[in-house]
C-alpha cells in the first residue's frame, strides 16, 4: 500500500476499499462506500447508539472473524468487513421479528411510508412472517401542539429523538419514561409538548412515530418532487428541502449532507413555509385612487412608477428619490435595484433596514473594520478555543448556530460563556454567565480585554457595567485560559444605539485572544444586500459611492453614467425636511420594522410611495402603487449568509400566479429608461460575477453545491484602528416609565413572511412581553395576564410571561406582531424604550 496520511484508516467492506478518518465507525465507512446497512439507531451526528442490533457485520482481523455492530466498532486499518452473509441476515431477521411483533403495520395510512427506516430494513433483509404473534400497543395519537404529532405505537425505541433534542437542540423536551414493556419516549407526565418546535426529532425518527402534523395526508414520500433551496428567514443560511406534490408544497424537510446546517432547522425553516400558498398573497398590482385601492395591469403600474421616478429626478433632483430595500431579497434583485436606480434614474439614495440603523456595521463594515470585520466562516466553530455569546440569545435568535455549537461542546469540551443584559442561559450549560447593565457593554468588553492581555480589569469599568465580581473573574479567566474565542454578537448588540463601539470593543477582545468575532445579521440576505451596494454610501463590493473612480468603474461596466453620490445625511432627516418626494419600498415593511413610531408619518407623507411585497403590510397599505412579488421559495437566485457564503436558491415551489420576482420588476423599470433586459436571474448573477469585487466567478453553477465564500479580503485591506468609548450610555430615569424594554424577534417569527405562515402563527399567535416575576407581582400582575406596555411614544397590548430571563427592571418584547408594533415604543435612533406595564 502506498503511504497514507496518519489520521486515516483504510479497510474493505464487501470487497470495496474505503478510507476514512481515524475514530470513525465502520458504519461511517459503509456510508462512505455507498453500502447500505439496515441499522435503525445510528446517526453519525449523535452519540449513544448500539440499541437496535440491526447493523451487525462480520469483521475479519488477522484471520479471525467476529460479529460486531458497525455503529459501535471503530474502523481500523486492514480489516475486512462483510455485511451480507447468510449468517448476518439470519441475525437481522430475528431482531426484526421482535421489532415487528410490536409494531402496528399501519403503512397504508402512515406518512412515513416510503421514507421509513423500518420498512427499508425489513424489505432489504427479505423479512418473512415470524413466529411471534403480533401484538399492538394501543396508545392514543398525540396531537397536543400545532406541528409535532406523536404516535408511540410505532416507536421502536431507537432513542434518536431523545438524543438529538438533548445534544443538538439543548432542549430535552422528551425523554425515556418508565421502563420495561411500558417504556416510552415522551414528555414528563405526558404533558403536552411545549418546546422549540424545531422538528429535529421528527427528522431523525426512523419510523412514523413522530410526524409533521401539517403534512398529514398531503402525500407519500414517493410522490414528492424534492428541491433543495435556502431558508428565506434568517442569515444562518440553512438548506431546506421543499417537498412538492403536483404543484402543492406539502412540507419542508432537511438533509444532513447538504449545506451549512447538517440537517438541523428551526421552527421557522421547517414549519414556516405556509406563506407560499397562502390565500392572502397579493396577485395583482394595485393603485390607489383617492381612498380606494384598485387592481391595475402590470404595464400601467410599472409605467406609473418609472414615469414618477424620472419626473421627480427632473423636477427636484436625484436627492428627491429614495429606496428602502428588504434583506430577504436575493442578490440579483438587490443588484438590479441599485443598478436601475443609479444608472437608470441617476438616483443614489438607497438603503436597507439594517443600514438605516447602523451603517458602520453594514455598508460601512469594511471601512470601519478592514480585515477585522466580524464576518467569520462557520468552520471556525470547530477550531475555536471557546464560545462567547455576547448580547446574544443564540437559542432563540439563530437557533441553528446553537445547533452547530453544541456538538462541538460535546465532542471537544469547548467552554461556552454568556454575557447579556438579560439573564440568558445556554443549554447544556455555560461555563460562566454574566449579566451586565444595558448601555455599559463597551466598559465590560474593555475590562475583559484588559484581563485577556494579561492586565487587571479597571474597577471603574466593572462598576459601570454593574457586574458580579466573581462571575466576571470566572468569565475573564475562562476566556483567557481557553483562548481563540468565537465571539458571537447577537441581536441586542446589532440593534444597540452604540452598536458600532460595542462591536469594535468585541473585535478587539477577540483579536487579543487570537479568536474571531461574528456579528448577528437579521435576515437571509442582509450580508448580500450590503455586498450589492444597497447603500447611499457604497457601490457594489463596498466601493465608495462618492469616489469618481469607483463611479467610473461601474459606468464602464454598465455602459451608462453612474452618479458620484455623496449622501446628504440620514434618510430620516431628509424625510423630515420633506426632501424625499418619491419613495420605493422593496420587499420589506419599514413602518413596522424600523424603531420609532415617527417613521410611519414620514413615509405616509411622501408624495408618491411605490412598494413591492408578497403580502399587504403596514407600508403597502400606505402605498400609491403596490406590486405583488414572488417569495424566495418560488424563484432561482442567490443569498449570502452570515459568514459570507453565497448559496443557490432554486425554484422550490411553483410561483404564485400574478406575482413577479423583484428582479423582473426592476429590469422592467430600467427598460423604461433604456436599460437592457436579462434572460433570467442566472444572467444577472453572471454580471455580478463579472463586475462586483469579491464575487468574481460566483455564478449559479459555481455555487450549486454547498455555496462559495465571498472574497472580502481584497476589499478589506489591513486592519483598522478601533477607537471606542467606554463611557456607558446613561438611561435617564423616568418615574412614569420605570422599566427598560428591550426588543427582539420571537423564535417563531421573523420579517414579513412569518405572519403568513399558519403553523408559526398557531405556535405563536400574539404579542407577549417577558418580565421578572417580582416586578410583575409588584404591579399586581400574573403570568398570562393581558397587559398594556406603554412608553412616551405609544402603547401596545401583549400577554405577560413571567420569567427569570428578565432581570428586575427589564422587560423583553417581540416586535413580530403587526397588531402590537413593539418597534414603535422606542424613539427614533434607539432600540430600547422606557416603559410602564399595567393590566389591560
Amino acid at each position: 500500500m502506498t503511504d497514507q496520511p496518519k489520521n486515516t484508516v483504510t479497510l474493505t467492506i464487501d470487497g470495496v476499499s474505503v478510507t476514512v478518518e481515524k475514530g470513525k465507525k465502520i458504519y461511517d465507512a459503509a456510508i462512505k462506500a455507498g453500502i447500505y446497512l439496515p441499522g435503525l439507531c445510528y446517526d453519525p451526528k449523535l452519540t449513544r447508539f448500539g440499541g437496535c442490533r440491526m447493523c451487525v457485520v462480520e469483521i475479519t482481523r488477522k484471520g479471525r472473524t467476529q460479529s460486531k455492530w458497525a455503529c459501535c466498532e471503530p474502523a481500523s486499518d486492514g480489516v475486512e468487513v462483510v455485511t451480507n452473509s447468510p449468517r448476518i441476515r439470519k441475525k437481522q431477521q430475528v431482531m426484526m421479528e421482535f421489532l415487528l411483533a410490536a409494531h402496528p403495520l399501519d403503512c397504508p395510512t402512515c406518512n412515513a411510508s416510503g421514507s421509513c427506516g423500518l420498512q427499508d430494513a425489513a424489505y432489504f433483509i427479505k423479512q418473512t412472517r415470524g413466529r411471534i404473534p403480533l401484538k399492538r400497543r394501543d396508545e392514543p395519537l398525540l396531537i397536543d401542539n400545532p406541528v409535532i404529532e406523536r404516535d408511540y405505537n410505532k416507536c421502536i425505541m431507537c432513542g434518536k429523538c431523545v438524543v438529538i433534542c438533548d445534544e443538538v437542540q439543548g432542549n430535552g423536551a422528551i425523554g425515556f419514561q418508565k421502563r420495561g414493556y411500558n417504556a416510552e419516549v415522551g414528555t414528563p407526565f405526558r404533558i403536552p409538548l411545549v418546546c422549540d418546535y424545531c422538528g429535529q426529532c421528527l427528522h431523525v425518527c426512523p419510523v412514523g412515530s413522530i410526524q409533521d402534523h401539517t403534512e398529514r395526508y398531503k402525500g407519500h414520500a414517493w410522490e414528492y418532487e424534492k428541491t433543495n433551496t435556502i431558508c428565506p428567514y434568517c442569515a444562518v443560511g440553512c438548506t431546506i428541502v421543499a417537498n412538492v406534490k403536483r404543484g402543492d408544497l406539502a412540507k419542508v424537510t432537511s438533509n444532513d449532507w447538504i449545506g451549512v446546517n447538517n440537517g438541523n432547522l428551526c421552527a421557522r425553516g421547517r414549519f414556516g413555509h405556509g406563506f407560499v400558498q397562502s390565500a392572502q398573497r397579493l396577485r395583482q398590482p394595485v393603485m390607489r385612487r383617492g381612498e380606494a385601492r384598485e387592481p391595475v395591469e402590470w404595464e400601467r403600474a410599472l409605467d406609473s412608477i418609472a414615469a414618477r421616478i424620472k419626473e421627480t429626478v427632473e423636477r427636484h433632483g436625484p436627492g428627491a428619490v429614495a429606496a428602502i430595500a428588504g434583506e430577504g431579497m436575493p442578490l440579483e434583485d438587490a443588484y438590479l435595484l441599485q443598478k436601475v436606480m443609479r444608472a437608470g434614474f441617476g438616483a443614489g439614495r438607497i438603503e436597507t433596514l439594517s443600514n438605516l440603523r447602523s451603517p458602520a456595521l453594514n455598508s460601512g463594515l469594511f471601512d470601519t473594520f478592514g480585515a477585522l470585520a466580524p464576518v467569520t466562516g462557520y468552520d471556525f466553530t470547530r477550531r475555536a478555543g471557546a464560545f462567547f455569546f455576547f448580547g446574544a440569545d443564540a437559542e432563540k435568535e439563530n437557533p441553528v448556530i446553537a445547533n452547530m455549537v453544541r456538538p462541538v461542546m460535546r465532542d471537544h469540551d469547548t467552554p461556552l460563556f454568556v454575557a447579556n443584559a438579560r439573564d440568558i442561559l445556554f443549554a447544556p450549560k455555560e461555563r460562566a454567565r454574566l449579566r451586565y447593565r444595558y448601555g455599559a457593554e463597551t466598559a465590560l468588553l474593555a475590562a475583559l480585554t484588559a484581563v485577556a492581555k494579561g492586565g487587571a480589569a479597571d474597577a471603574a469599568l466593572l462598576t459601570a457595567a454593574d457586574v458580579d465580581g466573581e462571575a466576571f473573574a470566572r468569565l475573564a479567566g475562562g476566556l483567557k485560559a481557553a483562548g481563540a474565542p468565537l465571539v458571537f454578537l447577537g441581536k441586542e448588540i446589532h440593534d444597540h444605539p452604540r452598536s458600532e463601539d460595542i462591536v469594535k470593543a468585541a473585535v478587539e477582545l477577540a483579536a487579543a485572544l487570537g479568536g474571531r468575532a461574528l456579528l448577528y445579521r437579521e435576515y437571509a440576505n442582509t450580508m448580500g444586500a450590503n455586498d450589492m451596494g444597497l447603500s447611499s454610501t457604497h457601490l457594489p463590493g463596498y466601493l465608495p459611492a462618492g469616489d469618481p473612480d469607483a463611479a467610473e468603474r461601474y459606468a464602464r461596466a454598465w455602459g451608462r453614467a453612474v452618479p458620484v453620490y455623496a449622501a446628504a445625511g440620514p434618510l430620516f432627516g431628509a424625510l423630515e425636511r420633506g426632501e424625499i418626494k418619491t419613495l420605493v419600498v422593496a420587499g420589506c415593511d419599514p413602518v413596522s420594522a424600523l424603531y420609532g413610531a415617527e417613521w410611519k408619518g414620514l413615509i405616509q407623507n411622501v408624495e408618491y410611495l411605490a412598494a413591492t411585497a408578497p403580502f399587504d403590510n403596514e407600508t403597502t397599505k400606505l402605498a400609491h402603487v403596490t406590486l405583488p412579488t414572488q417569495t424566495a421559495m418560488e424563484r432561482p437566485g442567490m443569498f449570502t449568509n452570515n459568514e459570507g457564503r453565497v448559496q443557490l436558491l432554486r425554484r422550490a415551489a411553483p410561483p404564485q400566479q400574478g406575482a413577479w420576482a423583484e428582479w423582473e420588476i426592476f429590469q422592467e423599470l430600467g427598460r423604461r429608461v433604456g436599460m437592457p433586459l436579462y434572460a433570467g436571474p442566472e444572467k444577472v448573477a453572471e454580471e455580478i460575477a463579472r463586475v462586483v469585487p469579491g464575487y468574481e466567478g460566483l455564478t449559479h453553477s459555481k455555487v450549486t453545491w454547498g455555496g462559495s465564500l465571498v472574497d472580502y479580503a481584497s476589499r478589506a485591506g489591513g486592519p483598522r484602528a478601533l477607537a471606542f468609548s467606554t463611557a456607558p450610555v446613561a438611561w435617564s430615569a423616568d418615574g412614569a416609565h420605570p422599566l427598560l424594554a428591550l426588543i427582539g424577534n420571537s423564535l417563531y417569527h421573523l420579517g414579513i413572511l412569518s405572519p403568513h405562515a399558519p403553523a408559526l402563527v398557531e405556535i405563536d399567535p400574539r404579542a407577549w412581553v417577558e418580565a421578572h416575576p417580582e416586578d410583575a407581582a409588584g404591579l399586581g400582575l400574573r403570568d398570562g395576564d393581558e397587559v398594556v406596555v406603554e412608553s412616551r411614544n405609544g402603547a401596545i397590548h401583549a400577554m405577560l410571561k413571567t420569567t427569570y430571563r428578565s432581570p428586575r427592571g427589564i422587560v423583553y418584547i417581540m416586535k413580530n406582531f403587526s397588531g402590537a408594533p413593539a418597534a414603535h415604543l422606542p424613539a427614533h435612533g434607539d432600540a430600547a424604550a422606557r416603559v410602564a406595564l399595567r393590566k389591560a
Partner: protein
Amino acid sequence: MTNMAAAVDGEVDIAYVREVLDKYQDARGAVIPILQKVQTHYGYLPRAALEMISHTLRMPLAHLVGVASFYAQFRMTPRGKYMMKICCGTACHVKGSAKLVEKTAELLDVNHGQTTRDKLFTMERVACIGACSLAPVITVNDEAVGYLDMEGIEDIIHKLRDENAIAPK
C-alpha cells in the same frame, strides 16, 4: 398506564427541596440521592419538587422524570398513610397472592400504585420481600403480616379505617 398528571398535587412546600439542593449544588451525578431524600421527606416526588430539581441541576424535566420513573423505588403520586405492599414473588404467588391483590383492589377501589381518595392507603405489588416462609405476605408500612387470607386482609383494612375514622358513622 396511570394518569400521573391527574394525581399530581401542586400545593407542596418545596423549602425542603431547596435545602437538599443546596447540599448537592451542581451535582448532576447526585440525582438519585437527591430524589431519595425528597421522596423520604414527602412520601413521593411532588411535581413542584421535580421542577425545582430540574431547574437547579439544569437537567431537562423529561430526563429527570425519566430517571424517576425508571426506578421502582420512586413514586410520583402522593402515598397514603398506609403503604400496603403485596408480595407477588414466587412463593407468595404459589400461595395465592393474586387473589390478595384482587381482594385489596376491590376493598380499596384502587389499582397498583394508586392511593385511595381519603389518602389512607396506597397499594403496590412488589417482588419477593424475603419472607417466603410467611407466604403469602404483605407489608403495611414496613411491618410484615404473614399467612394472610381473604379475611385477614379485610380485617387489617377495616381496623385501620376504624382507627382513623374522624367521627364514627
